[in-house]
């Protein structure tokens, strides 16, 4: 779908050498810090921008050369919803339906969409009189009004309350199950868990494009266990722990008597951890796998990338093992 995709504005690359392959029926989430190129990527994929280099293709054709019928199979939700403030909620939805040539006898269809975004009771209100969140919901309904096969949704859940957000994601999953493909950008990193694939963007580069689980794993380059000790370990004892064969990454002080250890396999490591620590002279009070949340994973991967960019090389191992990382963690 995207191959070496690059977009420059005024000589500055906003998206660089991006490669993506998305299968039909997948939900792809694009996450990344503000200004990382998420919206530009979506606009390139939707055919709204022509690439400076590389290609973006949709339905087997260049995204910028689609026919009218092919364009009608695409739904695009821009970050700023294209709504008309002096028209009512229903009139706005009807306008979008007409824009795609839907038959004029469509009352039930529009009603169903309004029900879904919980705007039925507000259908007669003018858009200028409803909240930003309601406008976002209306814009989402307008994007879906013509039943597109491929959806590009730029932050569809921004400003939506958590309950409705969850409802939206359930519906996105249902759409995906029915064969529709969704490319979604989001500022809520936790929403990555709803996606089949997650693309993590930073400074115009796609840092990783993988499953949500692998994103979490990638954050520490392995699985993570938290070990609570009877007493705080010394630096020498930690260095000896790092030499253990199942320890493949950093060992961080989560608290003074709690260590966070990156291992190759959490289950295997938990079976061996007690005896291994006793050999070092440490008593284990409790040991358990640490479930890395997406925010944490996101922050670690992005910071690691930025650190590496600043250092001019791969600084993953250095960043993971130095005391500064542990210090920052403790401050949190």
């Amino acid at each position, binding site marked *: 779908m995207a191959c070496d995709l690059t977009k420059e504005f005024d000589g500055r690359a906003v998206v660089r050498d991006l490669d993506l392959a998305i299968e039909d029926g997948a939900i792809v989430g694009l996450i990344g810090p503000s200004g990382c190129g998420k919206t530009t990527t979506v606009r390139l994929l*939707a*055919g*709204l*921008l*022509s690439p400076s280099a590389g290609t973006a293709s949709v339905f087997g054709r260049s995204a*910028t050369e*689609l026919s*009218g*019928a092919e*364009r*009608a199979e*695409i739904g*695009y939700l*821009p970050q*700023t*919803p*294209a*709504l*008309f403030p*002096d*028209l009512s909620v229903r*009139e706005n939805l*009807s*306008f*979008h*339906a*007409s*824009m*795609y*040539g*839907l*038959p*004029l006898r*469509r009352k039930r*269809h529009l009603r*169903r*969409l309004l*029900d*879904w*975004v919980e705007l039925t009771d507000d259908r007669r209100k*003018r858009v200028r009189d409803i909240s930003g969140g309601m406008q976002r919901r209306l814009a989402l*309904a307008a994007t*879906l009004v*013509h*039943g597109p096969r491929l959806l590009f949704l730029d932050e569809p859940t921004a400003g939506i309350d958590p309950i409705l957000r969850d*409802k939206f994601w*359930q*519906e996105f999953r*249902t*759409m995906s199950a029915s064969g529709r493909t969704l490319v979604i950008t989001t500022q809520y990193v936790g929403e990555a868990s709803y996606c089949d694939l997650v693309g993590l963007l930073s400074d115009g580069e796609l840092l990783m494009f993988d499953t949500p689980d692998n994103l979490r794993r990638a954050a520490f380059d392995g699985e993570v266990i938290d070990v609570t000790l009877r007493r705080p370990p010394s630096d020498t004892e930690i260095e000896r722990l790092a030499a253990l064969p199942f320890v493949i990454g950093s060992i961080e002080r989560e608290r003074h008597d709690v260590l966070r250890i990156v291992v190759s396999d959490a289950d295997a490591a938990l079976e061996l951890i007690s005896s291994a620590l006793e050999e070092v002279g440490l008593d284990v009070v409790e040991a358990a796998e640490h479930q890395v949340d997406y925010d944490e994973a996101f922050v670690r991967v992005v910071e690691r990338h930025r650190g590496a960019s600043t250092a001019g090389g791969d600084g993953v191992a250095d960043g993971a093992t130095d005391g500064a990382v542990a210090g920052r963690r403790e401050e949190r």
Partner: protein
Amino acid sequence: MNRPDGDALRPTRLGAPVVRTWAFVRKELAELVRQPRMLALLILGPFMLLVLFGAGYSQSDLVLRAMFVGPPGSIYEDVLATYEEDLDDFIVTKGFVDSELVATKALYDGVVDVVVVFPEDPVDTVLSGERAEIRVIHDEIDPLQQTAIWVATKLAVQEVNANVLSALTGEAQDQLAPAGDMVAALADRAAELEASGTTADASEVAGRVDRDLAELATVLDGSAMVLARLESVDVDLEGLDDARSSLRDIRTGMPSEDLSPEEYAALAADLREFADRFADVTTLDPMVLTRPFESTTESILPIRVDPGDYFAPSSIALLLQHLAVTFAALSLVRDRSTGLFELLRISPLSPWEIVSGKCVAFLLMGGGVAAVLLAASTWVLGVPMAGSVGWLALAVALVLLASLALGMALSMLSGSESQAVQYAMLSLLAGLFFSGFVLSIDDLVPPVRTISFLLPVTYGIRALQDVMFRGIGPDLIDLAGLAGLSLVYGTVAVVALRGKLRIA
């Protein structure tokens, strides 16, 4: 949970372009209707302007208030007093004074529009072969008003000239009248000569004839000199000159003494003939002599057009152009600012569908505004409507269509709503100056006149005037001009919109 696309509708196969165009018709109409203040402003604003203009415009403004300056007790005062009614088409007399200073102060004080200064002694000037100058002083800065003053004073001075000339001619005739008596006396002298028969009596009579002839020659030469300076009496001067020439011949050929009876008889015959011819010259009316022609005007128009009425079609055409240009220019710019263009780029909508949808909506709205304005002008303000409603509707529709196309083309040049408003204002100003609204487009030099033909209002004014005042259909050239502008501007708008919707 309700599913958003449980049984998703698919686009209609054949009707999709109509539905897509209709989307913009409904949107634009709904957006306009939702702004009642703007609608009221659209309809009531122009109508109130028309009412104010109709009520406030007065043709009497073309009549100048004038104060005259001349020597006290001169002929001018009498002429002005006598012929005040003849002058009141151009001038309202605000007094006759003998001091230019007093009159100029009145001009500064705004009491009068012009001061007319007559020459001190026109007869001397005229007799010396010069035209006596009448000076007109004003303080008008408006070039149009300056032209009006020039025209009005020119006409008024011509009228004064004619009246003075008439008076002078009358005076000349008064001087000629005794000469007429003298000529009659000459006829008597001729009879005396014929009857005298004796040399002594004849010589005495001949002596009296010689004195009479000398006296008559003096009178005729003096009158001829005055009349020769007054250009409009050429024909009669010819007669007078003949008389003088004949008189000279008689006097030259008259023997000094010892006339024979045949010579007395011949002299008597010459005198009689002279008397007959000369009597014709003195019988002309001075008014006919100085103003041989008069004019009357008749209009072939089916209705009478008052000054206030005259501007109604022009105002309506200009307002319609301005409304349509503003609607169209703002609409597309606003759509762009709402982000709609992003959606349009990946929707199946074509630029033609967008432009035509908007045009239909604004045509309906503009047509409604035009109908209200025209109906109110006719029924409330009493503006004449000599032509058919069908022609009127066609002219209005074409003016709106061409203006909408112009507005859409301008919107493609606009980066923001404020720029679009500026362009609309520029087109309004261009309409005021170049459409024939104020100045005739015939007064514009050809390269500049091109601008006139690029403005829908130019054709609109002529078309509406034809229908409303002449009672005929619009000129084919005007209809073709409007249709051509619609096509050209519409194509420019569509091509430019296609460019804007092209992927960056």
